[in-house]
């Protein structure tokens, strides 16, 4: 069969799963850090194992540690053995490690960039082609602007014949003003299409599946509006405490750590209008519209829509744990929140009047991330003497990825008694393969040049615009966050932001 093709096409790709990304070198600034060791390096190994890395691939770590190539390979090998989601194949690991080199130097020092240039040129020479370059900024946020400016100053931010991209870890600023300033610094050196602001929640299958369930099923979209939905609850709970991150967390707090990025992204995916196409810009444009439609919070009425909490001593998993203020390296005078509950409104034709409750906390009773959509109750209860609970659609993102629909059903027997039952769809059982780790998906997308699951400049600014009034109010206030015992579902005061008839889901 002769296919009708142009000679500048590649007909071999047709019918195959997605081709591996183009030949590239990945440079990780902060290549010895915690995120690199726990997530990035294992993700890269697993991509190597699956044959999903580019044909020609090089990895360069940059960090202040006094290591040579061999020392860095040892560090990487140990991290992969410890944190990989699958047992290592020694042959693949050995070959993967052989692609790795290391540049030692401070992120603000010229030397590091001067040493990096010849490394990258040597990789191009060895490959016989100009490799795409992807710089991954897995460093403290204060270095983001500096690194990008240094890349620009050393001619590493762009070149002809190959693509240059920069992945920026979170947090992208700590206020709208900072985000604007950082965007200005970044976009002074790079074009927006070169910038990949990461939010690893977007790499999770269930988050992506939200769009599939909404826009590929006639069942949901007709009811996805204020006429049928009573409320939306987005919950992200962690049973762990600071895990040695007091320095970062005490300057961040739950609002900046989780709400500004991950939870607002979940809200956007749930509330956005169908994009014209599933391209990066169309999807992100629709998300920005949602963020801009969120009713600005009046700092003077913050008590009505926001609650902040802080865990005290308690019991988690049968063990006594310290309260936040007793944790090592937390200042006695800290007013940082470890729990946030918000009530937001998306002021659009579709969502006007529907409360979007957001709740996140550390040291609560269990690890859990979910979105619960509660439908309006039936208009008339024909079943005397029995309560009919409203239907709920629950998208569970952690610890297991599944979707369940809560329905009312008759209890077997002679009477007409009703009880809620659930219909479940689980990623673990409905498909024959496990979901890849979010970082595997996101790194591959960045290598491929697909920005759909990354945050655009105006998107991150719009996120901060939602958060800023809350931060302003809390900064102004002299009150401490409301205490809650570790191992519970948060402070009791969280109930005060609920509208009549609504209640928090059990965690």
């Amino acid at each position, binding site marked *: *069969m*002769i*296919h009708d*093709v142009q*000679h*500048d*096409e*590649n*007909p*071999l*790709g*047709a*019918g*195959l*799963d997605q*081709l*591996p990304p*183009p*030949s590239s070198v990945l440079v990780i600034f902060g290549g010895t850090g915690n995120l690199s060791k726990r997530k990035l390096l294992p993700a890269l190994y697993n991509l*190597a*194992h*699956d*044959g999903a*890395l*580019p*044909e*020609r*691939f090089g990895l360069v770590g940059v960090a202040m540690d006094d290591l040579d190539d061999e020392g860095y390979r040892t560090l990487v090998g140990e991290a992969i053995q410890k944190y990989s989601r699958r047992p290592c*194949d020694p*042959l*693949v*690991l*050995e*070959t*993967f490690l*052989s*692609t790795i080199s290391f540049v030692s130097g401070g992120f603000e020092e010229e030397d590091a960039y001067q040493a990096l240039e010849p490394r990258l040129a040597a990789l191009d020479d*060895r*490959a*016989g*082609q100009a490799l795409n370059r992807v710089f991954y900024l897995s460093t403290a946020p204060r270095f983001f602007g500096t690194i990008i400016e240094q890349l620009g100053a050393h001619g590493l931010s762009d070149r002809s014949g190959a693509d240059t991209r920069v992945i920026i870890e979170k947090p992208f600023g700590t206020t709208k003003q900072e985000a604007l300033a950082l965007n200005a610094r970044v976009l002074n050196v790079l074009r927006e299409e070169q910038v990949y602001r990461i939010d690893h929640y977007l790499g999770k299958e269930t988050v992506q599946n939200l769009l599939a369930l909404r826009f590929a099923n006639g069942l949901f979209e007709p009811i996805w509006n204020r006429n049928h939905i009573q409320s939306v609850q987005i919950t992200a709970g962690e049973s762990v405490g600071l895990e040695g991150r007091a320095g970062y967390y005490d300057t961040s707090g739950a609002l900046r750590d989780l709400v500004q990025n991950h939870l607002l992204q979940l809200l956007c995916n749930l509330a956005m209008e169908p994009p014209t196409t599933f391209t990066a810009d169309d999807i992100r444009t629709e998300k920005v519209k949602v963020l801009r439609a969120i009713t600005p919070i009046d700092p003077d009425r913050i008590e009505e829509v926001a609650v902040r909490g802080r865990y005290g001593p308690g019991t988690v998993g049968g063990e006594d744990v310290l309260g936040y203020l007793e944790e090592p390296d937390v200042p006695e005078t800290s007013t940082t929140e470890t729990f946030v509950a918000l009530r937001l409104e998306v002021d659009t034709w579709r969502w006007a009047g529907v409360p979007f409750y957001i709740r996140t906390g550390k040291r609560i009773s269990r690890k859990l991330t979910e979105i619960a959509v509660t439908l309006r109750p039936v208009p008339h209860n024909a079943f005397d003497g029995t309560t009919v609970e409203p239907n709920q659609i629950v998208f569970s993102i952690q*610890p*297991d990825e*599944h979707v369940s629909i809560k329905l009312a059903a008759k209890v077997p027997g002679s009477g007409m008694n009703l009880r809620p039952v659930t219909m*479940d769809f*689980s990623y*673990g*059982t*409905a*498909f*024959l*393969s*496990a979901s890849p780790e979010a970082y595997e998906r996101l790194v591959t997308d960045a290598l491929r040049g697909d920005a759909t699951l990354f945050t655009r400049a105006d998107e991150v600014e719009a996120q901060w615009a939602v958060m800023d009034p809350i931060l302003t109010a809390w900064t102004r206030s002299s009150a401490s966050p409301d205490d809650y015992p570790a191992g519970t579902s948060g402070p009791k005061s969280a109930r005060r932001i609920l509208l009549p008839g609504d209640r928090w889901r059990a965690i």
Partner: protein
Amino acid sequence: MTLPPADALGPPAPRTHGTAVEHTVWQQDDVDPGAVEQAMIALERERSQRRRGVLPARALNLVVVVDADYTGEIVRRLDAVGRNAPSRTVLVRVHGHRRGLSARVTLSTIHEGTPDEASSELVTLDVAQRHLTRLDSIVDPIVLTDVPTLLWAPHGHVDALESLGTLGQTVLLDTADAADYTAGLDAAQGLIDDHGLSIVDLSWLRATPWRLRLASHYEPPARRGELWSIADVQIRHQPGSETAAWLFLGWLADRLGWTPEHGRTRDASGAEVGLRLSPVDVGVQGLAGATVTSRAGAVFSLDRNRGGLRAGRTDVYAAVGEHTSTERHWTVLGASRGEAGVLGRALRRTLVPDDGYIGALATARRLLSCT
């Protein structure tokens, strides 16, 4: 509903920490398919009362028809696919002579330390040879409805496949199992043409990483032109894996519009393309290597190697009175999946059909008929 005999419900194995599998078993002789279906419902209810977090897997049925004496080898292969296991496997063991049906149902619950636990089901049916022509009436009540059904007869029970044809949409086979490679490819074509079935061919899937890497190599716009000036293709294969090699060539020829005629193969411009196959023992079924040479002399090769595929690239630069070339070698990372991985990939392929196979098979047969 009729519950299975109480003594047929085996006690569940104790739970252990980490990944563990719990089996619940029911079995009965002289049974009819309706009783098997009822027993499975009862087992499922019994389990859901004990373990509310278990979600029965509902992705794929696999019906395997095997000679009873050679069941063990197939069961071992299926065990090795791990979490790619079908949701429900119906293992039909064929005996020469047997009066009635016997059935054994095993519900397996996989604990991986998460709140939701997956499950899969194995139904083993012992049938007589005479049952094969009406196997559909036995298997139909037992498979999950509304999910794809994959049929596999590794010991050649074509009559069983014909009977089950309306039940299953896809047949798993290995064209390398046939007595000779021409017969293997012809049999696959027969199942498509005569029975309207889709095919998942293990010989085709063994070459998937090779197809991906070859396609990827020619993806950069600067290299795409080479695809239209290929002068020669050499395929190295494990002895006995000729069908994998022919299917690979069939795929290339199909995608690039090559036509076999009078013992030669010509590309879309009419230029001849040399095709060569050679056996190389690398101890692993499937391809051992591939070399593609362009008319300008550029060469790209892939060979099986430790930790991935060993790639080689030769570029030729010609100037007036001068002819130079550069040669580079490197490893394309990727773990060997082994036969269990190939079978797992085959099971997943049932959910995501591969439209490249039909063209590759037809073109491979045309190439073969011209040699």
